């Protein structure tokens, strides 16, 4: 993916950290892939902001650092790196709120064609998965690299 993104740190290719840099300063973001089940293997993708004092991660705050697309592109790159090292498994992702999930979908829409050449992307509504469509809102997403 040829999108502007931040470089990111990793020690095990399962967890990634990068700094969002913008009007509100430097905000450490942490992305983590967690195995949910086997057969079929599904990982959860979760990410949030790291509190500089406690070191704990949270996704309830809005960074407002004017770099949303760069942050989402960086997360997309971590998905690629993760698949390089752990295989092409299902990855489940959702936002902490419907509004945030919608933001993620807007990010997906911006690189829709590029993503769909490399990944099977499904939108989740209720307990069903559907091949993702641009103008449909979903509750969560399931992706798998081709």
């Amino acid at each position, binding site marked *: 993916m040829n999108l*502007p*993104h*931040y*470089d*990111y*740190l*990793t*020690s*095990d*290719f399962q*967890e*990634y*950290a*990068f*700094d969002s*840099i913008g009007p509100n300063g430097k905000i450490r973001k*942490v992305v*983590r892939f*967690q195995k*949910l*089940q086997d057969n*079929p293997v*599904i990982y*959860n993708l*979760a990410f*949030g902001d*790291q509190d500089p004092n406690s*070191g*704990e*991660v*949270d*996704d309830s705050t809005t960074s407002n650092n004017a*770099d949303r697309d*760069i942050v989402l592109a*960086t997360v997309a*790159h*971590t998905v*690629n*790196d993760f698949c390089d090292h752990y295989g092409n498994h*299902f990855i*489940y992702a*959702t936002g902490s709120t419907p509004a945030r999930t919608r933001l993620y979908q807007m990010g997906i829409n911006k690189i829709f064609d590029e993503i769909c050449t490399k990944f*099977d992307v*499904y939108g*989740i509504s209720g*307990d*069903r*998965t559907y091949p993702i469509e641009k103008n449909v809102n979903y509750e*969560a997403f*399931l992706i798998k690299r081709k």
Partner: protein
Amino acid sequence: MPVVKKADNNISYGGGAIVSSDIKSHANDPFFVKKAEEAKIAVSKLVLPETKKK
């Protein structure tokens, strides 16, 4: 383009990834533990694409 400083002891791995032993694991961070629990419940109810009946 964003500017990111690379620490001297970090190894560039290409594609934006820099391998570093300096980062702390958040495997037991309450945030990620909670996210995984919520996702497990959500995924357990899902009809997955490859398991759909044709």
